[in-house]
């Protein structure tokens, strides 16, 4: 197994224009409320991959787990040909199904809590979904950060960030749409990495880490807002001042 490159580091190492391009990827097309989106996996894929995931705690994210899963689901070993990406398919299956499962959890959130609290609760819920396989998550991260799978990995991370913000009720549609998603993606990815080393009971240290990072993010964002307001106020004051001196602007 190669050295693990934390996803957020990969993300931040990209030059800024590429980074925003990666965030773009979380854009899907128009979301309709009148029709359910088609399921992401076929019934066969679903059966094999969910069975394979059950073998991850013992076999890790490996082809063995995949083969075992196929057998459990009643398919021949050769059916693993369905998954040319091999063990990575199990990782992706976990990411996609857990992201989609967040919607069910979101309805249980208290409506009175603010967006940041909701984001934290949702992100924490998602992190806890890694619990059963957390000992093997570094293997998953290694697979995720290989050059071949990197585009899929970053897209999945961006989709998760978008999902968290949407479910938390964020309605920001200014340029902050991009910065919010980029910041949350980086925070989530670093919390996920932190969790793989966390020995505390119930992952309370990860919980604290996440809270701290989100608060820091909030502070930076608040600070940026203030700078924007200050610049606007100065410009407005200047225009008013000149106007009062009879300058026609």
């Amino acid at each position, binding site marked *: 197994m190669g050295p693990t490159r934390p996803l957020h580091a990969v993300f931040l190492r990209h030059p800024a224009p590429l980074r925003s391009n990666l965030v773009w990827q979380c854009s899907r097309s*128009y979301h309709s*409320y009148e029709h359910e989106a088609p399921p992401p996996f076929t019934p066969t894929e679903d059966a094999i991959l969910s069975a394979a995931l059950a073998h991850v705690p013992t076999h890790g994210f490996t082809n063995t787990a995949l083969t075992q899963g196929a057998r459990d689901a009643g398919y021949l070993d050769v059916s693993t040909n369905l998954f040319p990406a091999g063990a990575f398919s199990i990782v992706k299956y976990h990411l996609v199904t857990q992201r989609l499962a967040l919607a069910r959890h979101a309805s249980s959130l208290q409506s009175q809590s603010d967006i940041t609290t909701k984001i934290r609760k949702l992100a924490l819920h998602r992190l806890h979904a890694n619990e059963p396989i957390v000992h093997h998550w570094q293997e998953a991260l290694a697979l995720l950060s290989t050059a071949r799978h990197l585009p899929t990995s970053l897209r999945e991370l961006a989709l998760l960030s978008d999902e968290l913000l949407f479910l938390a009720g964020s309605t920001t549609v*200014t340029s902050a749409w991009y910065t919010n998603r980029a910041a949350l993606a980086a925070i989530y990815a670093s919390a996920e990495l932190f969790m793989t080393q966390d020995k505390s009971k119930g992952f309370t240290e990860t919980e604290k880490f996440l809270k701290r990072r989100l608060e820091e993010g909030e502070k930076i964002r608040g600070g940026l807002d203030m700078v924007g307001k200050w610049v606007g106020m100065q410009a407005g004051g200047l225009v008013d001042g000149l106007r009062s001196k009879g300058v026609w602007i």
Partner: protein
Amino acid sequence: MRTAVTARLFFNQALHRPTPILEFLLPSFTVPQTRIHYASITTSSSSPNTEPSPSSLESPTSNKRRKPLSKTQRDFLDRVLRVNQAGELAATLIYTHQTSPITRAHPHLRSLMHHMYSQEAGHFSTFNQMLAKHRIRPTAMYPIWSAAASALGWGTGLMGREAAMACTEAVETEIGGHYNGQVRILLGWVKEMEDKGEEVGEEVRELVSTLKRIRDEELEHLDEAVGEGAREAKPYEFLNRVIRSGCKGAIWISERV
């Protein structure tokens, strides 16, 4: 001269023959887009009287089967709603920056400027809500459009009433035509669904009526601007051409990035 030709050649090639680098930088540039033709419109505040108004637009309930919007249709909505939001952002900023110099010189225009501004603010908030609800990303050019629209409003405001009105006329001609094109395409979908005996969903039905209303308001702005001397602006032709091609360019870019 030769550089310009080479640059254009490169640009055309880059656009029409996807290169891996460009595809990675700007994926949406190289994805073949459905070409939409927007017919230009003449000044008139009435909606075209040839516009069909299918009966299914008025009947909210039916137990006909309903087909999901296709990927192409959803991509179309994604693109146009993003452009609409950017356009309304620009409109509110143009009026905001024109109002002060214009109403100082022409106090009788205060109520008109205020009326047009508040309608634009209403449009802007309508599209903001739609983007959030339907999970559509805003244009990545957001800060740039803000700056450009503010500068345009401020500049034409300083040039005087006629220039400000010429600006409104030019912008509304493009925007009105843009909305008109959308209404026409959506009505095409509605007709197709009706012909196949499918139920037209509430979402499409509502969108058509919202777009029609907003288009009619834009066309009113156009008429009011012409009434307030837009055509007397000097240099009218120049302003009209520059602002209209600016709008076209902005629409083209916002559809993609």
